[in-house]
């Protein structure tokens, strides 16, 4: 909301500079986002008197104008259609003047030297009229600064008005706020005095829907002549960002900006039957609004109708048929109070938001209707040279007084944390316009003024007292810490996990959660698992992700586009799955870890670059599982399940022996389908809370007796994993088989194709005694025999 400081100063004594006023408003809740000094962009422009107008010798569309600027005579070339006759006054910018960013210079136009320019409102940046020169009153002194002549000086405050303060959407409301802050009276705006003439034709007003329209005020003004508003009105509207239209329309806008009270002006002659009826719409009823669109209504909409049908959407927008036109002479001014939620519903349903609906849906001052209406009528009669006819119509009136709000002073201190003297409390509330009555136990019964629809509860009054008293005046008491229970959930573990992964060399990413169906399907999701958005940003972002990988792979693609040799990335984020079978309720959300290793792995010297492989991925998994989750993990080949990974390396990740995710090289077909680099190693792990082990590690006693190591090398089928052999060896061996580990895998000379040699170290150690050679031999032979029969292997010597 733009607020003119000059206008405020017509309402309240305000000698403080603009910056200080802005600061006080900001601190008490009307945040001033910027202060503009009006007219500051103009330098050196003056009033010029036209002395002589000659045709331009070479340009039939131009004239040479001789102007007096108080210093001397200047010749200026001008193409405007409305050059005043000699003796007339206009705006003149001599060489050296500044019009915003433009510095005026002498220049030749069609062979004639032009010493500066004659200006229109738009040239000067002080109005919207570009049709011709700005013509000044005949009495203007040549050479007078335009700032002085046009009263350009003002400050405009950009005020951020929060939804609870509809009163702040008008200058009067801001003036009242300043009156409370500075403890000064506000003088209510006075319309130019007018005489009411007798009623000529009775307009008939009936409100059929008092719930939607609690108060409907109307006033007829006749004998008007549509014309441009005077300069001061046009300039004020311009500064406040409103286009000046004509005297009659400008009046409605001035009242809106002053009282935050929207008006509507109907051309009385176009109101069929001379009647206004306020009622709910009939289903399917239609009307053309001012913007030329045909609107169709539902029974929830409140309409303003004439004797035959709708002429305005109440509080939102007027109809085309009764719009003020250049030939309008008689006007019915509507000044009403509408039910805020109803206006909001209609405005949203029609997708039609206006300055009116914006204010009505926030709440206007029902009690202020007569004042705003009288002000509008008087100003319109003055500017349009018309007459105010008959008494104002007022349907609905002020209504019953709202129930008083009980305020307990002790409550103020208890919430705010400082004592307020009772006269400070009373003073603040009274300056806000509240009516007070004493109640029992030192409490007050408070009735808020009509322009403060937000003050309906005790806490609302507590806030008023606190903010007017000033938050800066509050003592800031530092918190006292009490030891609470340990933090629940995943947060601390996620913190550990990201530290571990960053230390391991990965870069953390934060991706968007939106995706499209084909992308999610590429990772095994089905349509009925995906959560769709009702109003997605675009079709490519219509679903919530079921996997972190598309985002990570996109990040890797970006790295390659920037010609980086590789990308080692992870994300800790949530995925979303619809509950099965259309079960209502929130989707299933889980934390997941995603890892993508793409391109080259460079360890140390750049020449040591190698492709990432499954074992790099396993190392990252180990870091996560051992370093953060602290749960046992395993990779199990599962090409049939993890179809988006290369069949050679597709694995399921197991944590605690349960399936928890997948890992492997992205399937080249999937990579092509998603247009991401081939060969990326990908991993995704579901992080359910039970996968974060809260207990500390338990210590095992250190070995006291010597160990005996026996090695075993054998040729296996390629499908046998080292893990299979280790697991079987453990199963086959005695309890004193302490450790089994693979230490070599060999393919090549001496090994048939489709087979491989693997070597294992078996460590035997009894916890309570030294093993004999014979015991170890027997046990080891048992393991070897078992493996031979299980895998049909040949033992290598």
């Amino acid at each position, binding site marked *: 909301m733009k607020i003119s400081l000059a206008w405020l100063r017509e309402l309240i004594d305000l000698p403080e500079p603009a910056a200080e006023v802005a600061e006080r408003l*900001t*601190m*008490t*809740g009307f*945040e001033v*986002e*910027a202060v503009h000094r009006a007219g500051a962009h103009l330098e050196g422009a003056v009033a010029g008197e036209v002395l002589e107008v000659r045709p331009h010798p070479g340009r039939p569309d131009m004239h040479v104008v001789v102007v007096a600027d108080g210093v001397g005579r200047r010749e200026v070339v001008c193409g405007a259609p409305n050059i005043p006759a000699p003796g007339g006054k206009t705006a003149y910018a001599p060489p050296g003047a500044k019009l915003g960013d433009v510095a005026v210079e002498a220049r030749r136009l069609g062979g004639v030297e032009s010493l500066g320019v004659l200006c229109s409102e738009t040239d000067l940046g002080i109005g919207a009229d570009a049709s011709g020169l700005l013509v000044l009153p005949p009495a203007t002194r040549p050479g007078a600064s335009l700032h002085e002549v046009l009263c350009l000086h003002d400050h405009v405050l950009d005020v951020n008005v*929060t*939804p609870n303060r509809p009163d702040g959407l008008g200058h009067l409301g801001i003036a009242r706020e300043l009156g409370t802050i500075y403890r000064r009276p506000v003088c209510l705006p006075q319309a130019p005095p007018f005489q009411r003439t007798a009623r000529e034709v009775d307009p008939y007003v009936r409100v059929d829907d008092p719930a939607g329209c609690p108060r409907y005020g109307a006033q007829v003004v006749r004998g008007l002549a549509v014309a441009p508003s005077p300069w001061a009105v046009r300039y004020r509207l311009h500064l406040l960002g409103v286009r000046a239209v004509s005297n009659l329309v400008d009046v409605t806008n001035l009242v809106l900006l002053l009282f935050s009270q929207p008006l509507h002006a109907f051309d009385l002659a176009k109101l069929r039957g001379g009647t206004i009826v306020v009622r709910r719409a009939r289903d399917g009823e239609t009307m053309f609004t001012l913007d030329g669109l045909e609107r169709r209504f539902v029974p929830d909409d409140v309409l303003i109708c004439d004797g035959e049908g709708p002429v305005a959407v109440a509080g939102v927008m007027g109809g085309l048929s009764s719009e003020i036109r250049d030939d309008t002479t008689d006007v019915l001014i509507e000044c009403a109070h509408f039910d*805020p*939620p109803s206006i*909001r519903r209609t405005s949203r349903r029609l997708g039609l938001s206006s300055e009116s609906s914006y204010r009505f*849906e926030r709440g206007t001052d029902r009690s202020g209707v007569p004042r705003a209406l009288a002000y509008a009528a008087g100003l319109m009669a003055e500017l349009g040279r018309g007459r105010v006819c008959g008494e104002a119509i007022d349907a609905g009136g002020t209504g019953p007084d709202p129930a008083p709000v009980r305020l307990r002073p002790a409550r103020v201190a208890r*919430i*705010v*944390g*400082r004592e307020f003297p009772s006269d400070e409390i009373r003073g603040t509330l009274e300056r806000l316009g509240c009516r007070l009555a004493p109640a029992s136990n030192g409490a007050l019964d408070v009735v808020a003024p009509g322009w403060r629809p937000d003050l309906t509860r005790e*806490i*609302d009054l507590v806030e008023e007292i606190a903010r007017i008293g000033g*938050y*800066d005046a*509050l*003592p*800031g*008491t*530092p*918190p006292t810490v*009490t030891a609470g229970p340990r*933090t*629940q959930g*995943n947060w601390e573990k996620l913190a550990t996990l*990201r530290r571990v992964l960053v*230390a391991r*060399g990965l*870069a*953390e*990413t*934060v991706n*968007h*959660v939106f995706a499209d169906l084909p992308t999610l399907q590429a990772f095994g999701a089905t349509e009925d698992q995906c959560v*769709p*958005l*009702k109003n997605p*940003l675009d079709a490519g*972002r219509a679903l*919530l992700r079921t996997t972190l990988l598309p985002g990570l792979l*996109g990040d890797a693609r*970006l*790295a390659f586009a920037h010609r*980086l040799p590789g990308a080692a990335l992870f994300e*800790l984020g*949530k995925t*979303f799955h619809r509950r099965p079978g259309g079960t*209502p309720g*929130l*989707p299933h*959300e889980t934390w997941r870890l995603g890892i993508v290793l793409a391109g080259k792995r460079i360890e*140390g*010297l*750049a020449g040591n670059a190698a492709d990432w492989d499954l074992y790099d991925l396993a190392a990252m998994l180990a870091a996560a599982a051992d370093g953060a989750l602290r749960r046992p993990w395993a990779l199990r080949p599962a090409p049939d399940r993890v179809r988006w990974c290369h069949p050679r390396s597709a694995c399921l990740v197991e944590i605690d022996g349960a399936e928890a995710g997948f890992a492997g090289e992205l399937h080249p077909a999937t990579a092509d389908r998603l247009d991401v680099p081939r060969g990326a190693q990908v991993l995704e792990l579901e992080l359910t809370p039970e996968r974060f082990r809260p207990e500390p590690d338990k210590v095992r006693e250190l070995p006291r007796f010597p160990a005996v190591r026996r090695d075993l090398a054998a040729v296996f089928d390629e499908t046998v994993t080292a893990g299979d052999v280790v697991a079987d060896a453990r199963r086959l061996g005695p309890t004193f088989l302490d450790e089994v580990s693979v230490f070599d895998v060999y393919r090549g000379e001496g090994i048939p194709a489709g087979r491989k040699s693997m070597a294992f170290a078996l460590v035997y150690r009894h916890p309570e005694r030294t093993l004999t050679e014979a015991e170890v031999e027997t046990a080891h032979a048992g393991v070897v025999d078992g493996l031979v029969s299980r895998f049909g292997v040949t033992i290598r010597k």
Partner: protein
Amino acid sequence: MTQPDQQAPDLAAELHALLERLDADLAAAHNAEEARAAAAKLLGKKGALTALQKKLGTLPAPERPAFGASLNRAKDDAASRLENRLTTLEREAFERSLSGPPLDPTLPPRGLPHGHAHPLMSTMHDIVDIFGRMGFQVAEGPEVEDDFHNFEALNFPPDHPARDMQDTLFVDAPGNLLMRTHTSPVQIRTMLAQQPPVRVVIPGAVYRHDDDATHSPRFFQVEGLLVDDHTTLADLKGCLTLFVQEFFGADVSVRFRASFFPFTEPSGEIDCRCVVCRGKGCRVCKGSGWLEILGCGMVDPAVFRHVGYDPEKWQGFAFGMGVDRLAMLRHGMSDIRLLYENDLRFLRQFQ
């Protein structure tokens, strides 16, 4: 070294020659092994001195003591010459070990280089840590929410303009689901799940239907909630001032001004002196010299009623802040899009 004595001159000469040769051999030895081998030619099982020792028995008895004494002196002599040589060799070897070309310490270290923490996440964790030190526990909640938790219980009535403050992404599913527009629904979930006292900090992703140069449809907030039977607006001011000074430094000044949020009353915002221009006014602070850091206020009684807390008995404050803005201020960034593009060239600037 041999002394003039009563022994036969041929023995003295022989011993002398042996020791002379030992000296030569030791001098030629390049290492301890060679030196020991040279000494073994005299002192070993088959060494020359050992051979002479064996002759001792063949000598006439009167000659034996003198002969033996000479022999022992020669043995001691040989042993100490070996010792000397070994000491020298060891010293030489040690000195050699200190020479040789220097290593190039500017070569890249072996192994994978250290990774990169995302500035948004680091900032969010740091914020949570500061409140953790003030006794706040972390609470989390779903990112897909329903209207009740995201709006209604937070005192955003239907058809109320306060809802315009937040442009919502709706989920196409039964039950009025939406992408949460703030982390505040977790306040509701926390209060519905437990009785006061409550002291939680809530980090997380939030969503708006907004995608342009200065808005990301997904961004991050940290929110806090403290409810007990005595916490006041003054306590809120003290707690959040402490936070801002922990985050930006103790010398940054803070202001606390009135504002509006549907779920708090009285409501306020905390600004800090612009960390870029130190209050003179710049592009980042839009000339005001102040930066908006967080919104806050006393929990509105209407919210307490929605979660079944008695507003006459319980009171407290809530606050919320945008992680993006704090991360950008802290790292001197001006373009929010960098935070969401995952451009590795950007991420690599963070360790």
